[in-house]
């Protein structure tokens, strides 16, 4: 054989090396993907394992005598001052008569949530005719009972180190044996505002706060963002100024969100005098935050409209405005809406700027408007994650699940919208 190598031989000589490189690259890619998937899996599993129990809550069955003597001592029923607490306690004592000393009784009362008397009050307020009867009711147990039933408190542990005494545990067991303890759907989680008592704490206040904020954000940022994008893409003369604006908008999209919070604090609260902790201010700050995202997405969508469509319309004698509103906007709309939804989901998950404008306060009432003190879902998560009680830990995870659910729905909506509005040309 001659020393001259043919082309084929040269190619074949290099082939093994090429294949090796390809394989290595493929493996690296698979490894990277696998790591991502594993982390995601761990994240979701821990979240669900920790959070799913919060959707269930322990209830106690009590036979409560709505005695007229207690509720209306002067013959007049006033639900604001009536001693519902006393009724609940009486029922509890009747259930477990062995607790006689003051200390024992106090330990006994701690088995039931203060929510029980609120529940009783609401019941009597809506049905005053029940006064004088005895009602069998399921009332919320205290969070410690709840934790014990869910297996989060170890009965074998040192008594001094757990929140329930041996006595209380034996009471719970006897109630359980009597069929007076049950796990039910935790509707309080969705119908209550925040509370110091974990078993009464809910996310409704935070959800409504987030809702009002997003309403402000979308009504401001979408029209402003789209108008700015149209102006910059279609009308603004190309100059050093427009370049400068473009660079700044892109930079703005990368500014840490907490900076927007500081800006909001300085401008909206200190200078314009808007109320602290209000959804209105939160919405304004999130508008600043999402505006660059929407402008960038909208400009990309406008750029993607084929120039031939513009030329066709211009050639027919359409004015610039008509070209934009009759042709460019309808074609760019799916992209713009997708951008808006992505901006909104970013706004929904944002917490740092809200801390700066006082939306981190402990607020029990569900906000009823834009200027009411409010908090937001991610901030609520932050607040609960900060609470030491075990019962708040599971609620933190539950709130995260709800937040992720909202985000999932929004991103899904973006996909569907894009699919439905996409037109071929």
């Amino acid at each position: 054989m001659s020393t001259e190598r043919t082309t084929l031989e040269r190619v074949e000589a290099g082939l093994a090396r090429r294949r090796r490189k390809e394989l290595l690259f493929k493996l690296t890619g698979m490894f990277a993907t696998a790591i991502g998937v594993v982390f995601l899996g761990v994240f979701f599993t821990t979240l669900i394992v920790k959070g799913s129990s919060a959707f269930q809550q322990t209830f106690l069955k009590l036979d409560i005598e709505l005695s007229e003597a207690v509720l209306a001592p002067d013959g007049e029923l006033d639900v604001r001052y009536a001693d519902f607490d006393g009724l609940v306690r009486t029922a509890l004592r009747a259930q477990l008569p062995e607790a006689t000393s003051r200390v024992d009784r106090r330990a006994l009362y701690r088995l039931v949530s203060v929510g029980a008397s609120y529940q009783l009050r609401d019941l009597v307020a809506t049905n005053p005719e029940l006064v004088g009867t005895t009602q069998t009711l399921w009332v919320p147990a205290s969070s410690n009972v709840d934790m014990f039933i869910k297996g989060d408190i170890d009965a074998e542990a040192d008594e001094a180190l757990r929140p329930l005494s041996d006595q209380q545990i034996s009471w719970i067991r006897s109630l359980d044996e009597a069929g007076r303890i049950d796990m039910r759907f935790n509707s309080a989680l969705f119908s209550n505002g925040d509370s110091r008592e974990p078993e009464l704490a809910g996310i409704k206040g935070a959800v409504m706060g987030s809702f009002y904020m997003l309403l402000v954000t979308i009504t401001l940022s979408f029209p402003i963002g789209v108008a700015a994008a149209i102006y910059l893409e279609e009308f603004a003369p190309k100059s050093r100024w427009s370049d400068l604006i473009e660079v700044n908008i892109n930079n703005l999209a990368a500014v840490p969100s907490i900076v927007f919070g500081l800006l909001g604090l300085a401008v909206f609260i200190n200078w314009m005098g808007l109320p602290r902790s209000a959804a209105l201010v939160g919405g304004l700050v999130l508008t600043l935050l999402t505006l660059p995202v929407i402008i960038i997405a909208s400009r990309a969508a406008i750029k993607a409209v084929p120039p031939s469509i513009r030329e066709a319309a211009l050639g027919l004698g359409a004015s610039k405005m008509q070209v934009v509103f009759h042709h460019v906007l309808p074609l760019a709309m799916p992209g713009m809406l997708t951008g808006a939804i992505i901006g909104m989901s970013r706004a929904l998950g944002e917490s740092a700027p809200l801390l700066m404008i006082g939306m981190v306060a402990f607020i029990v009432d569900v906000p009823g408007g834009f200027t009411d003190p409010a908090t937001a879902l991610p901030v609520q998560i932050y607040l609960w994650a900060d609470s030491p009680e075990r019962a708040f830990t599971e609620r933190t995870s539950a709130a995260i699940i709800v937040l992720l659910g909202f985000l999932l729905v929004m991103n899904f909506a973006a996909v569907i919208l894009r699919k439905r509005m996409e037109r071929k040309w």
Partner: protein
Amino acid sequence: MTMTAMTETSTDNPEPIPAPVTGSSKEVPVSREIVLPAYPGQHTELGEKTVGNVTCDNPFMIAEDVNVYYGDNHAIQHVSLEIGKKQVIALIGPSGCGKSTFLRCLNRMNDTIETARVTGLITLDGEDIYRKEQDPVALRARVGMVFQKPNPFPKSIYDNVAYGPRIHGLAVDRAELDNIVFSSLERAGLLKEVKDRLDEPGTSLSGGQQQRLCIARTIAVNPEVILMDEPCSALDPIATARIEDLMDELSEDYAIVIVTHSMQQAARVSKRVAYFHLGLLVEVDETNKIFTNPQHKLTEDYITGRIG
């Protein structure tokens, strides 16, 4: 002059452009920069006038010493040309010679290109179309345009044709609009094919049908001049033949300016032919004269296939 030499000319080599075969015998040193300009009888210092006859009876649009610059690129140089009423004029020439650029001057589509600058005088029916008071929107209603690639709007067939009349307020009621749409489709030879599917998107038609839809859309505005930039380049011979027939019919009412790369098409549809070369208008004449007896060497080279 051989083909290789010509190719060099087009690649920025200041190869002198050869003198006409007949006509002026004086050797003019010609560079790529400024040459061959001028209105009939009018010579610039360096140049020589366009060969043939740039005038016509009954001119409707007149271009006089038109220059177009894209930034520093002098894309159209001292072009003067008359466009007659009820007549088809074909613009031919090698790629990049400025046919589209000149065409787009006639309805001010160049206004939409930021770097483009147009000088000289272009009149429509005696009025300067670049004068201050002239609204380009109104001009484009009078000078319609059909593009190289069919570009129907992503709307229904009906809405495509109705769009122009709608924005210009040409129809007072739905019946009149229907009338305009149907007659335009009829004249574009498309009505038979689409009358049962007017609600379907214009983009669902075949390429040839789409181009006829675009023509229908243009004539629905009832323009006085129609500009066509290689309207058949994306079409098969059958669709091309239909559109050529259509041009024949339309030329009874409109002035038509068509850019084409097909000598045969130019020969079939046009009454006059203008040959462009590197931004210069080299020769203009009656179609049969250009194809049987070109005056300029460049024209001859081009139509015999030596440049292209």
